[in-house]
Structures are given as structure tokens and as C-alpha cells.
């Protein structure tokens, strides 16, 4: 983490200094900052849905927070040649702060919130912020002083959406305790919640449906 970001994020300098341990930022506060930002995003994309649960059954309530989707996002962004999760979290929060400023008022958060502007937004506003930073018409919310090269992180921002869908609806959360292992070591320990929600029975050896009536040549 660099000084510039800390100032941009609205914390006071004294509080930032409090977080310094032998000249380094406290790892735990960085961890919380990143995890909470990605959780806010994942929860927006695949939220808890009490209404759906009431209409269609209890399983429909659960969302990204129960399926480690924020972890998947962090793992995927950090899996690149340059680890990008911290940079993406910074971009989300600074774009969120900008968004709040445009809406008027003083967006500065009290010092103990760690600059989590993104999580402060309503779910719809969070998506509007993501839309701004992923719009092909020009990205204007990339904080100056980012330690990551802009050219490394900007083209990957639209992956926020794709990673969320893959993380939540694929088999990944069902890998359970093996989910961070290399692919040949991962084992499907249980059916992901999402599969129950969508009615996917899981991998199969085959389906006895050959000979479905042939619409192609039917006159």
C-alpha cells in the first residue's frame, strides 16, 4: 500500500501512521479492506433474496456470501502475473468516493472504516460504480499513485462480472476444503448451493435421451 492511496481513501494521516508497523502497513487491515470490498461487490451481484426464498423455497435465499465468491474473486485477480486484488479494491473504493462526491455532501468516512466507500453504497449504486470503471468509453476513476500499472489492471476490470458468475455458478465453491488447491487436487466435496438453486444435478456420465424426436427434418 502506498501513501497516496491512504490519503485518497479519506483517512487522516495520523490514523494511517497508527497502522504503520516498522514502516509497513498492517497486513490485517489491508486484508480486511480487500475482503470487505470484494464481499460488498459479490453480495451485490448475487445477493440474499428473502423474496425469492418465500416464493420458491428456502435455498433461494442464499447468495455469494455463503459460497466464498469474494474469495474466488480475490484468488482470480491475484492469480495474474501482477497480483491485482488490492488494486481492484482500491479502484472500487475511490470510484465509489468520487460517486458519492458527485451526489453532493461530504463523503469522507470516519477514520475507523478503512476507506470502504464501496460498501457504503446501495447495491444499485455499487453496480453504477462498476459500470463506470468498466465502460469502454473511457476510464476516469483510476487513482493516481496506484502501485500497479494502469495498463495491467484496467483491461481486467470487466472480469469482475465474469469471475463472479464463474465463481458462484460453477463447481468451484463445491471444492470445499480443496478449493485453493491446483486443479488436479481439487475434489467436489459437495454440490454448490447455486446448483441447488438452478436445478443442475451436477456432472453426469451420460443421459439416456438419444433419439429425441427429430425436428430438423420433420416437414
Amino acid at each position, binding site marked *: 500500500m502506498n501513501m497516496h492511496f491512504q490519503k485518497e481513501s479519506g483517512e487522516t494521516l495520523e490514523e494511517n501512521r497508527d497502522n504503520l508497523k516498522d514502516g509497513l502497513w498492517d497486513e490485517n487491515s489491508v486484508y480486511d479492506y480487500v475482503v470487505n470490498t470484494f464481499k460488498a461487490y459479490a453480495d451485490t451481484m448475487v445477493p440474499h433474496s428473502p423474496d425469492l426464498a418465500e416464493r420458491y423455497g428456502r435455498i433461494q435465499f442464499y447468495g455469494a456470501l455463503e459460497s466464498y465468491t469474494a474469495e474466488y474473486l480475490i484468488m482470480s485477480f491475484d492469480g495474474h502475473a501482477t497480483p491485482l486484488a488490492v488494486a481492484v479494491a482500491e479502484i472500487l473504493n475511490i470510484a465509489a468516493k468520487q460517486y458519492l462526491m458527485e451526489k453532493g455532501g461530504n463523503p469522507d468516512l470516519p477514520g475507523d472504516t478503512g476507506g470502504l466507500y464501496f460498501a457504503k453504497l446501495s447495491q444499485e449504486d455499487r453496480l453504477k460504480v462498476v459500470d463506470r470503471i468498466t*465502460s469502454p468509453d473511457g476510464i476516469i476513476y483510476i487513482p493516481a499513485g496506484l502501485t500497479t500499472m494502469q495498463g495491467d489492471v484496467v483491461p481486467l476490470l470487466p472480469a469482475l462480472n465474469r469471475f463472479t458468475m464463474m465463481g458462484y455458478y460453477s463447481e468451484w465453491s463445491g471444492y470445499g476444503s480443496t478449493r485453493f488447491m491446483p486443479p488436479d487436487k481439487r475434489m467436489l466435496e459437495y454440490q454448490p448451493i447455486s446448483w441447488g438453486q438452478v436445478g443442475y444435478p451436477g456432472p453426469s456420465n451420460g443421459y439416456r*435421451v438419444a433419439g429425441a424426436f427429430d425436428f430438423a427434418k420433420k416437414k
Partner: protein
Amino acid sequence: MNDAVTGKFRWGPADRSISPWQRILQKGGFVWQSAGVGGTTLLYFANCPRAYPGAFERDWPISYEEMIPYYEEVEQTLPVREATATSKEDLFFYGARKMGFAYTNEINLTQPGYRLQPNGILGINPMLNNPDFDLGNNQAVGCTLRGHCVNGCSIGPNVGSVAKRSTLVSYIPYALATGNVDIMPNSFVTAIHTGQNNEEGLYADSVTVRNTWTGEIRELKAKVIVLSAGSIESPRLWLNSGLPENEWVGKGLTTHMIDCVSGIFEEKDLMNILGMSDVKPYVGQNSAARMDYPGLGAFEPFGTSPGIYATMIYGTSQKGYYFQNQTNEEEPWDREGIIAGELLKEFMRNYDKTLSIVVFSDDDVSQKNGVTLDPVRMDENGYIPIINYEISDDDRERRDQLVGLAAELLKKAGAKTVSRANWPPDVCAHIMSTMRIGFVTDTNCEANQVKRLFIADNSVLCNGLGGPNPTLTTQALAVRTAQKIAEKYFP
């Protein structure tokens, strides 16, 4: 499986403690490729249509007629056959008929028509419908309609008889059986070296190969070198090797500007049309039917497991989130853009009643589109590639028209709600024509400026074929190139 960062199929070294190899896409797209023996055919749908003859007449320096025997040879070798449909295809055909489209028996297409997909998947296991047949201990040859084409097919008693005919299970075993071939997995060529003599001028002489596990570097000399690293890496390797400048190296990229539309159906309508209450997109070959429309492109129904499905139909767009896009009355889709929040959950709850169509539009070759090297950033294989693709007005018009037809088909089939994704045009799944025949190479696919260097992948296609999936044409052209190499250098 299809997790492109940490999963089985990704563009990166086999060692999963190392990140995937970086590519830069300017417009928010991504590259869907897999490294490994068999390459991206490990995850392709195995759709094997021929190019449109009209697309050959437009740009190619060789005639479509000349290609036909090579098409036939690949079709017999893989082999290519008519796909076996399941309910998603039946629903697609129902909509196509309602649209007034005609069924076609043709394989060299000049007119619009729908048909079963020609694909490189073996016939159905004849025991499949026998309820006593134990699928868990299946040792028989043939497709079991398990729907894992894109996740990597492993159905078959041994490697050479796996149902989906990726090159790993078709051409590579055939090549090994000759006794003349060595396969070196985990090898990445980082440079092509040349020599020079009076007769030939500049000629390819050797390559530098880096082992992606150990980092060991080797030099291999050859009488003839075939460059076949795909439409991104082939020009990248040319440029990183400092081979002669050519205004078409890395230029002319076509991608089919892929897009997706999906429709959600009601149970009673499906009962009436299909005699069953759902479509089950996870059942059957991932795409077993197609609609060809020469002049505009092609589209095909598809279904996959839910992770890729959600990513393709609801998670990829150049238009942002659906709630920010107004749709007008003329547009046959009800919404456009990324689906998020409770609506995403509601839509995915209808996963088994969803029919989706992937649309491949006919994009023109433009010298503005293609692959260049980053001037600064490198990985262990050299300067990294930057991919740039700008959609032209003509291309956009064709694309919107074709996506409109696909959306209308879903409506005519009875879909209650239709969503258009509107993918960024630089999503690279059909990556073609960055080292074009007739421009970078002669008509034998030998590089004009470097003798003994032949090109044999999608990059040497002269254009986007009019919209059909490119693999069959690339394989047919490679068979022709092999013959030309044999005639010229090994008489």
C-alpha cells in the same frame, strides 16, 4: 474446469503455482484459449462446418473448389458427422421453422438454412438407451450426451477413441502411430532463427524452445518449420523473433464479434412443443444444431453447465448492466447487458427452461485490427501481445441484424423473456486471419519473406470465412499445406 486463471484449461504453464500468460485486450474482452497438447480443441464444442463459398470468393487467393477434397479428408479423418440433437436443438428447430427458415441438406452453403450441427463427435453409444447399461463403468465407444464437450470430453475406452475429437485424441495419436513424430509437452518456442543463402534468400533454420516447467532452453534445427501457435502467438512469435517487417503480420484480425441471446420459456409451452417440462441446457452435445446465413454469419443453440452458461449469457457485455439500457420497440430482445442482483438469481432459477444462442457474425478484415507487441512489458516468452479490435459500422449492422434474427427465433419459439448480452467485440474465441494467406504467405502457406517457414493455424485464414466456426477449415488448409511441404521439400 473452465476457470481461465486457476482451472484445468487456461492459457498458461502447466505449473499452477505460476500465473497464466498475460495478454492485453483493450476493449474489455478476453481470450478463450487453452495451452496443452490438443490446445484449444480440448475445450471447443467440436463444431465442424465448412466456410461459406462466398467468403472465399471475396478475399482468398485459392478457390473454394480447391479446398473441397481437403475438407472431405478431414471430415473422414476426425470424423465429422451429423450431431445428435436433444431438447435444446428441437426447441431451436421449432423456432427456426416458425421464423420461416428452411431446413438445408447442403454443406457448401450459399443460402440461409438450419440443420443439425456437423461436428467432430462420434456417434451415440448404441447401448445408451438400454436401461441395464452401466454408465458408471462404460467401456464402449461413442458419445453419451453427458454435455461436457466444453469442460473436456473423456468418454471412451482409450485416448484415441474419446468421443469428442479434439486433436489430442485424433490427429496426435495418428501422428504418433507413424513413428515419425515426437511430442514435447510444456514447450514454448520463443524465437525463430533464420539463415540466408543465394538461392532462397532468408530461410527459417532453427527455433529456441523453452521448457515451461524447468526453464531449460534448447535449440532445434529443422529443414522446414511450421508455425502453428494460433492467431495471437504466431504473429507475436514472428515479431519477437525480429523476422522481416510485413504490413500484414498481426493485422486483419477477425473474431466473429461473438454475442449471445437467451430466452426463458414457460413450462406449459415447453410441454406443448417438446412434450417435456424443461430444456435442460446441460444435457447433450453442447451445440448440436446451427443456422447458417451467408452474408450475415451463423448462429447456434448451445447449452453448458451453469458456471460457463451464466458467464456467457448474463456476465459478459460491452453495454454495462441491464438496468441502464433502454430497449426500443424495434429491438426483439427485452433487455440488454449484464444481468445482476435478484434478477440474475431469478433468471438462473429458470436455467433448465432457458434456450441460448451464440451468434457468429461475418466481420470484414481490417488492417486496424490485430496483434502488436507491448513495447515494455515482457514475460518469460518475450514481449506480451496486445490485441486490438474495433468494430466497423458495416460489421455492427450485420451483427445487430443477425443477433436480431436469433432473438426473434427465441420469441417465435415461445420465449417469455429474451435477453441480449452484447459481448465486447474483442472476445477472442474464434481468433482468425492475423497472418493471412496471400498477404503474409504465398498460396502454399509458406511465408513470403522467410522460406521454409509455413503457417498452419487459424492465423493463416484469409478472412473470417463468413461466420462459420473456423477449426475445420484450418485443419483442411493444414492438410493441404502438409501436402505442399512434402511436394516441395521432401520430394
